[in-house]
């Protein structure tokens, strides 16, 4: 077929017919997917190999993103151009040489905390940089404190890697490798994961060159401009469909010593959108809950993309019409030497801020409050001297939306996955006594939130004590908020040996299980509800009651009555219906 040739003929003028464009676009995304798979299969840490906390992208020579992997961590896709611009500012493109690979984990340039390491590989054709392949992955250790809630500044967060040449014209930078090796836990895992990123970037570079050869293109410029224009147009059309105006909202996040106030003022004018976080709290001295502006931008653009243009592949063009402002020194634009390790405690609330602000303009697309993902970390030394070190991810429930109950089974706004109990138990001296849906954890409403989870941990019987568990919970103070009259979800409960800890007792996230019978329970919130509960379809209420996850006492009299009548009518039918 001639699509390839058509593309070749079109190279003088950056315009492609719809057929060729669709094909080339898919191919570039396919290349990013190949990079992603290469990392997944060659990484050695659980956080990358199991929880899939990484992303891959292809950028043009101007450091504008062209295509990211379908499976990339959403926020990483947004920061890869920023970090590449940072590299170019430090090492101008004209001075780059084939075989160079750049590295950094700078939170202000990259993904907002030191754990996320970026590798940037310039792609050369005829002695000229024609593209960049970039990957960002959450390393298994960057040194620093195990108890993230007690960290006071970035130096306690761990090792900061400035923009460096990790490879200089093909030669490894032994100094950089040595510095990393001596400053992280389990250095073999960390360095092998970096190798995985190198492999992916190299593979991506090779594929980009083959792509250019095939279409007889000198570089990515022409195709990237057209692709970006398409995505930009889709985003601009979506913004233009939102009524012009100013949309405001505020939320409270737990913070650590005291709550954090966040506010936004979204200005929609024509086909552009400005998100201004002025008025949000100052940066905090402790606990790593500060967001760098790069990270704030990413967590702003990501939910906007989901709301406005969910089906069009993302790239630089998608995000051009979006502008983000946060005052310097605020918790959404923190400055040195702020600690940033737990920046998700703040950043994961930004989508709620945006959904809340745009609820009146996009009532059918926003979602009520999210229970949020939680992570449990177990680290210690086996009697034989080896170290165990495992993360356990588990999600709260997501909020309801107009016409739909909340969708559980995911960690939005992260694209990580959970860790199976059987695998977690196999790698740690911990017995997970429960991971189930938490009854009455969903905010009710015409549409109810997804249910949160209930977890219970104790030391493995017969294992040397104590066992240390590190937690960093969210939603201790502020529950997921309902929308349009829907009910809030509940708060998170941390319960040790039957006693619920209050937020003040959780300034440290270290829970020490000292005796065989010690129990740590986490009750995570489900999503909030949408719309008034009185309007809920009695059929759905009946199903909720039947599941045992909603107590009848939570229903208003009128609804209980309607459901009882319904159940009466169904008696004998309900028990024999085919399960769905």
């Amino acid at each position: 077929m001639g699509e390839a040739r058509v593309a070749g003929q079109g190279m003088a003028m950056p315009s492609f017919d719809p057929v060729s464009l669709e094909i080339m676009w898919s191919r570039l995304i396919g290349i990013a997917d190949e990079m992603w798979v290469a990392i997944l299969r060659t990484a050695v840490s659980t956080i990358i190999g199991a929880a899939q906390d990484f992303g891959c992208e292809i950028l043009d020579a101007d450091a504008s993103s062209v295509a990211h992997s379908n499976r990339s961590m959403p926020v990483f896709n947004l920061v890869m151009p920023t970090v590449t611009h940072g590299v170019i500012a430090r090492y101008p493109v004209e001075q780059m040489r084939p075989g160079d690979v750049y590295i950094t984990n700078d939170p202000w340039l990259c993904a907002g905390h030191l754990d996320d390491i970026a590798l940037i590989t310039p792609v050369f054709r005829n002695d000229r940089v024609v593209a960049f392949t970039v990957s960002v992955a959450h390393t298994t250790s960057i040194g620093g404190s195990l108890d993230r809630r007690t960290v006071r500044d970035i130096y306690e967060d761990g090792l900061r890697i400035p923009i460096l040449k990790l490879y200089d014209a093909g030669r490894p930078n032994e100094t950089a490798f040595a510095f990393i090796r001596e400053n992280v836990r389990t250095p073999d895992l960390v360095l092998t994961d970096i190798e995985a990123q190198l492999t992916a970037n190299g593979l991506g570079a090779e594929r980009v060159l083959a792509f250019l050869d095939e279409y007889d293109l000198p570089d990515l410029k022409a195709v990237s401009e057209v692709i970006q224009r398409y995505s930009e147009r889709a985003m601009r059309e979506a913004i233009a469909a939102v009524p012009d105006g100013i949309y405001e909202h505020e939320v409270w996040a737990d913070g650590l010593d005291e709550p954090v106030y966040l506010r936004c003022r979204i200005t929609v004018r024509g086909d552009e959108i400005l998100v201004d976080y002025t008025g949000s709290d100052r940066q905090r001295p402790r606990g790593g809950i500060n967001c760098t502006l790069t990270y704030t931008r990413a967590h702003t653009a990501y939910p906007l993309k989901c709301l406005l243009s969910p089906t069009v592949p993302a790239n630089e063009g998608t995000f051009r019409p979006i502008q983000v402002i946060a005052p310097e020194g605020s918790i959404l634009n923190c400055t040195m030497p702020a600690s940033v390790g737990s920046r998700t405690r703040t950043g994961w609330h930004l989508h709620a801020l945006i959904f809340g602000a745009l609820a009146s303009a996009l009532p059918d697309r926003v979602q009520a409050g999210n229970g949020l993902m939680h992570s449990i970390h177990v680290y210690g030394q086996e009697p034989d001297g080896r170290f165990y070190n495992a993360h356990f991810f588990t999600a709260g429930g997501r909020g309801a939306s107009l016409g739909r109950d909340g969708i559980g089974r995911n960690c939005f706004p992260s694209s990580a996955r959970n860790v199976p109990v059987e695998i977690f138990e196999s790698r740690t001296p911990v017995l997970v006594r429960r991971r189930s849906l938490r009854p009455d954890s969903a905010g009710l409403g015409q549409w109810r939130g997804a249910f949160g989870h209930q977890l219970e941990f104790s030391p493995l019987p017969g294992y040397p004590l104590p066992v240390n568990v590190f937690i960093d919970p969210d939603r201790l103070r502020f529950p997921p908020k309902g929308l349009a009259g829907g009910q809030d979800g509940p708060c998170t409960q941390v319960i040790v040996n039957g006693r619920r800890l209050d937020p003040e007792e959780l300034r440290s996230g270290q829970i020490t299980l000292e005796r065989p019978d010690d129990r740590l329970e986490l009750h995570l919130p489900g999503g909030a509800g949408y719309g008034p509960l009185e309007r809920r379809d009695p059929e759905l209420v009946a199903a909720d009651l039947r599941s045992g996850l909603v107590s009848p006492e939570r229903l208003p009299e009128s609804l209980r009555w309607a459901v009882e009548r319904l159940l009466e009518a169904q008696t004998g039918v309900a028990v024999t219906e085919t399960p769905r």
Partner: protein
Amino acid sequence: MSAPRYAVSIDVGGTFTDLVLFDIEAGTVAELHKVLTDPQRPARAVLQGWRELLELAGIEPCQVAEVVHSTTLVTNALVERRGARTALLTTPGFRDVLEIGIEQLYDIYDLFAPYPEPLVPRHWRREVRERVSRDGTVLEPLDESGVLAQVDELVAEGVESIAVSLLHAYRNPAHERRIAQLIAARYPEVTVSLSSQVAPLIGEYERTSTVVADAYVKPLLRRYLADLRDALQAEGFTGQLFLVLSSGGVTTLEAAMDFPVRLLESGPAAGAFAASFYGRLAGHEDVLSLDMGGTTAKACLIERGTPAVVRMLEVDRVHRFKPGSGLPVMTPTVDLIEIGAGGGSIASIDRLGLLKVGPQSAGADPGPACYGLGGDQPTVTDANLLLGYLDPANFLGGRMALRPEQARRAVARCIAEPLGLELDAAARGVHAIVNENMAQAARTHIIERNRDPRSLAMVAFGGAGPAHAASVARILGIRRVIVPLGAGVASAIGALTAPLAMPFTRTYLTTLEDCDWSAVRDLYQEMRAAAARALAPVAGEAALVETRAVDLRFTGQYHELRVTIPEELELSAGSKDALEAAFARRYREVYGRVPSGLAVEALNWHLTVSVPRPSFRLAPEPVGPPDPAPALRGERSVYFDEPEPGERRCTVYDRYRLAPGMRLAGPAIVEERETTVVVPPGWCAEVDTYRTLILERADGEAVE
């Protein structure tokens, strides 16, 4: 009465049931037949097809030595939720495993991406008191009276089938087995599936999902297979009846009844075996199998003459075939990828004004616009008709007349006019994009398995495959395409070539350093015993052949590499070095470098047991002169994009008159009853000694 010398293969698909009669002695396909599938009573359509097939060939049921059967029945029961009323018994605290899943967004920008409903509703998911630890130690004994109380209630509520999935049961199955005994003693009519038997693998969500799927389809499949066996016996058939497993091996009827979930990809697996067979016949061990039907296409990488078998598949993807949107089933399955790209795939324009094809399909009803059955959406088949690839008068051997006018109207209205394209440009676009979709999916599938597509040949079959094969091959950089005769029923032929083999797997997670080798030997002993029980009735005097393998990885990794355990290796403390060395070799092969200083751990231990079976072989025919003129059927105008887009005169050949040795040059069309082969410009084709058509890209042409 002559001795049984025939084998029959029956492939029940969603639309058609394909039957093949094979003459074992002569090595020839004696008869092919196709009847409509009866989704309500599938055994009836099979029986009708069986009678007609034998009548066409003029043979008696007693002359058939064996019947090999593949079916989509299990998949369809799951997808259409037509299974049994099923309950789940599980460990306290883990009632909701099915609803929690892996908790991953499979589409990062879709706030509303749905997940499939669990097969068991929460009120039928019950906890029974018990607990086993990671190493199999019983921390809390099974509460037997509690089990019976739960089962009493469930049966009273109408439950017909019970799945049991207890934490760490892959390590210690005692509690699950005891539950099965308790149920069998009180309710012998209730079917029971145990996770420790169906999928004894680590990972509670995937294992539970699998055992529940098994329990869900078990009553239905047992009834169907019993009906089929009785009906064939009543006809006078006295031979062996085999079922094709998702892994591509065949098994006995009884073993299939025990674990119906192992039949999920029965048909596609048979197709992959057909591709391996025809690939080998044409001298290619490494091929890409492309099986394109009405609704979907299946692509499968075959290396060293055998399709790879993986341990998981996903059924009932509820969202545009996206991985992650379905129910995982841990069962050995031929490693293939299903793409929403078939003859019935619908072309449309998306929000951006770009042309998209699939994954929605017009199916058989209403079907493509050109069927004239009421479909008004343009499909791939409509585009192929407009481009001249299909002959409206010769579709399905002329049994169904196509209506080009309807196709033209649909393509014009939905594609050409909105995009401001000429009609043929629009049709070319549809054809090109469906090819690109297949190529893209196949490329990812191949590259994820660390192969370069350019090193492969392609075997193309299925009703629509041969019309698209060369174009897909060109995009992938593949230079040779193999199109077997009877490509429309190739899956049924593939079933005849499948080995009589059963795979077994047990999980024992350990570093090689700390491995308890006697425990490993016990696992193998147990698997061997299970294999002997299952295969004894058919093995007779023949010795069972064993292959062992183990999944190894560096500690911390989530992706294993499978390493074959050398036949002579006695599993003992001395095995560590040998296995580590084999792992390092394989690792370097796949990833290019081996990290140092990391411990190697073992996860799954595999045993495949096979029984030698008379090998399926085709008899070669003498090669004649190269001139294809005797097979010439005519000429027509056909659009091609290469070397320049445009219409050109194209010779049309009759596939049945193309004799071994004949050569033809593209552009050409080769027509057979159930499929059409397109030979684009720049390609030539040769008929080999088995009447397989081998398409080849002309030398000297640049390959990507």
